[in-house]
């Protein structure tokens, strides 16, 4: 029966090519517009590390200004001071913990012909690599001891290893940066988390860093800080040491806590730490420490741009217009073959068989619109890429989830659009239309 209805549907679609084309086109355009925006939103709000996003927590300790300025309310600062980050690292109370920040160095290739170039670096700790599940092509991250002993070790990204060592296994070799030699301990495989969750204070959809070095080494040699530094009061005195001991925040701190118990213990530890700091005259605000897991942190930092949500709303309305369009056209089409329908009813077809037949026809139109719409989505995403450039480089891929969503959405839309016209078609009385002729 199903294949017979398919055949009938196909015949009906072919009988009125103009209306059918309009319907398929309307659905395709609606799906194309909608899916383009949905894809961008979906990628923006996707989970960058699904396997352990609920075990990784962004740590905020509220060391901020007692005076409320600009009516912002008392929110804990979105980064951490050096004093607090080092105290938490030293306490070592979480299963793993990492303090890190973004920086930049100048890399001098071994080959004298090549000019030195600048690289984006991340100053971090040994736990960074296992904590965020980074995969290595060669070697591995460095040991805890390298952090303690200020060893000049480095982990390279795949691209930098290709640029500097032609993609060879460079473990054990040395790289010259800012006039110092760093020994390579590992080369990362491709690492493009979207969003770049471990540091959303900079561009959350930007490039990952090219080079990773121990945080303590960067502090020791006073390497520059890229990214944001915010202070609610100036450091007491000049120089780098005064800055390190100041209330300026510039570090992102993550802790890995494997279960609710560990989380509660860690929170208790943070609160005890804050109380202890209060006694020393710091932390002038009421206690307000926060642990946010990856998705909570993305939400808190409003990683999905308002623009994307506005576009999403508008594109859903757009799809609604396309649906209204399809309803009208389907109605026209089904009522246009009232003669056929009443004849079939007269020959014994029940309402439910007619219902099934016309819903199948609607679904076929939806399928056509979905497939065409996928093509339009692809074009739409290329358009978005062209308009936004490198800002969205990692946002405009179509994965199979999105492909299935597009087809599913198209068929569902067509079925919804088909409901009313089909219902009207089924109400046509047997033989009522035959008398006229």
């Amino acid at each position, binding site marked *: 029966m199903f294949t017979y209805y398919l055949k009938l549907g196909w015949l009906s679609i072919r009988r009125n090519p103009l209306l059918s084309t309009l319907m398929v086109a309307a659905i395709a355009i609606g799906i194309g517009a909608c899916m383009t925006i949905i894809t961008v939103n979906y990628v923006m709000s996707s989970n960058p590390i699904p396997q352990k996003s609920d075990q990784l927590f962004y740590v905020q300790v509220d060391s901020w200004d007692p005076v409320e300025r600009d009516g912002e309310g008392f929110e804990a600062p979105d980064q951490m001071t050096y004093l607090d980050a080092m105290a938490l690292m030293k306490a070592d109370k979480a299963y793993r913990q990492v303090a890190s920040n973004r920086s930049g160095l100048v890399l001098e290739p071994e080959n004298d012909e090549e000019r030195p170039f600048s690289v984006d670096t991340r100053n971090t700790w040994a736990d960074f690599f296992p904590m965020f599940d980074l995969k290595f092509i060669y070697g591995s991250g460095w040991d805890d001891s390298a952090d303690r002993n200020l060893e000049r070790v480095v982990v390279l990204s795949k691209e930098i290893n290709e640029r500097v060592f032609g993609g060879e296994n460079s473990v054990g070799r040395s790289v010259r940066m800012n006039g110092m030699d760093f020994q390579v301990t590992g080369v990362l495989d491709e690492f493009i988390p979207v969003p770049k969750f471990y540091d959303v204070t900079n561009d959350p959809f930007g490039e990952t860093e090219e080079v990773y070095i121990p945080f303590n080494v960067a502090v020791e040699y006073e390497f*520059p800080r890229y990214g944001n530094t915010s202070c609610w009061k100036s450091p007491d005195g000049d120089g780098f040491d005064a800055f390190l001991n100041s209330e300026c925040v510039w570090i992102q701190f993550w802790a890995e806590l494997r279960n609710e118990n560990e989380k509660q213990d860690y929170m208790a530890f943070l609160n005890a730490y804050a109380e202890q700091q209060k006694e020393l005259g710091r932390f002038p605000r009421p206690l307000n420490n926060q642990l946010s897991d990856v998705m909570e942190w993305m939400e808190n930092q409003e990683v999905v*741009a308002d623009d994307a949500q*506005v576009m999403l709303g508008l594109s859903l*309305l757009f799809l609604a217009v396309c649906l*209204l369009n399809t309803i*009208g056209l389907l109605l026209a089409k089904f009522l*246009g073959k009232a003669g056929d329908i009443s004849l079939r009813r007269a020959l014994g077809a029940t309402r439910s068989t007619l219902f099934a037949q016309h819903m199948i026809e609607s679904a076929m139109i939806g399928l056509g619109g979905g497939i065409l719409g996928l093509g339009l989505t692809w074009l739409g995403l290329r358009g978005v890429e062209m308009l936004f450039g490198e800002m969205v480089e990692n946002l405009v891929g179509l994965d199979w989830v999105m492909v299935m969503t597009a087809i599913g959405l198209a068929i569902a839309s067509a079925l919804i659009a088909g409901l009313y016209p089909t219902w009207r078609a089924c109400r046509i009385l047997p033989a009522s239309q035959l008398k006229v002729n």
Partner: protein
Amino acid sequence: MEIGPIWRALMRNKTGAILIALQIAVTMAIMVNAISIMQERGRLMARPSGVDEQNIFSISSVGFAEQFNERAAIKEDLTALRALPGVVNAIQSNSIPLSGGGWSMGLQTEPGEDVDGPSVAVYFVDEHGIDTFGLNLLAGDNFNPTDITWRDIGDTGWSDKIIITQSTAEALYPDDPDGALGKTVYISGDLPMTITGIIEQMQAPWNGWEGVENVILVPNHTLFGATHYIVRTEPGRRDELMPQVEELLAASNQDRIVRSMRSMEEIRERSYKADSAMISILTFTIILLVTVTSLGIVGLASFSVNRRTRQIGTRRALGASKVAILRYFMTENLLISLLGVVTGAALTVGLNILMIETFSLTRIAWYLVPAAMLILLVVGQVAVLGPARKASSVPPAVATRTV
């Protein structure tokens, strides 16, 4: 007129008409709100940065070698840049408007730790700053060469002179902005600075910042390891000078690298990239939307013409002219469209209120609603023209046939 009969005929077959009217209504709601967003973005992008945008570019220099002497390099570079034919002036600064990276501080009119005051963007410049950026000094004096001091990366002290924008003066002294010149303000709680000059306007490095024109100029050269040179050229010579300057800096000192050379126009483009992309996407959306809606009108009108072929023939046989038939379908469409745009006006306002609440967008300008109503009525008439002409060409003889 024939409105009565047309309306009654419409009422006999409501569904199709309601669908089209609804479609027009939703189309209008999207269209007007999208245009309103576009207008808002357009206004943002039209704000002047305050600097001579056509003739300025910036280039960064990052020292890396052990023996790199930043202070000597800056002096040398500035002398070389200013001597270059075609260059009007050049400075070293920490930032440039719209570039996205910079330094902000709080200013207050009274000393003390818990005094509130406006946040301002800080540009470190020397006595060539005003000329290089192309700023307009309204009152007071430019810095003297003797005012310029060297600022190390960890320094917390501040110069005793600053030049501020008018908008900063308004933020500091809302009651008497004109009296700002010569007054003392405090930075970092209790460090005094005297306002020695007021410039008309200049933007901060961040285009979305609340007090985007709250800017101060501080007479410092900076020793931050990485520095920006800002070069102003004679009109029309920027593109020719950019590669020259890059080559000059790269060749003159091997202990640093130069990078990120960008014209002010490019900096502006990057800064507003998301906004201009939003405008393009919305424009495209509106075009598609109106197309889909008009195709819907064409489809349904054709269907209704086909179904009424015999009626049309009968009317023609009874003496109705071609024009009368044409008018019938045009008027029918006008009625449906009117229903659509009136509903649309309500939907538009509703959607706008929702957007204001959810995304703090601005209110739509009142004239957009009647303008969109008019446009959609015209679009409807144009869309129905084809099917209506087809209807008017139905020959009277059709009435006599049975099929």
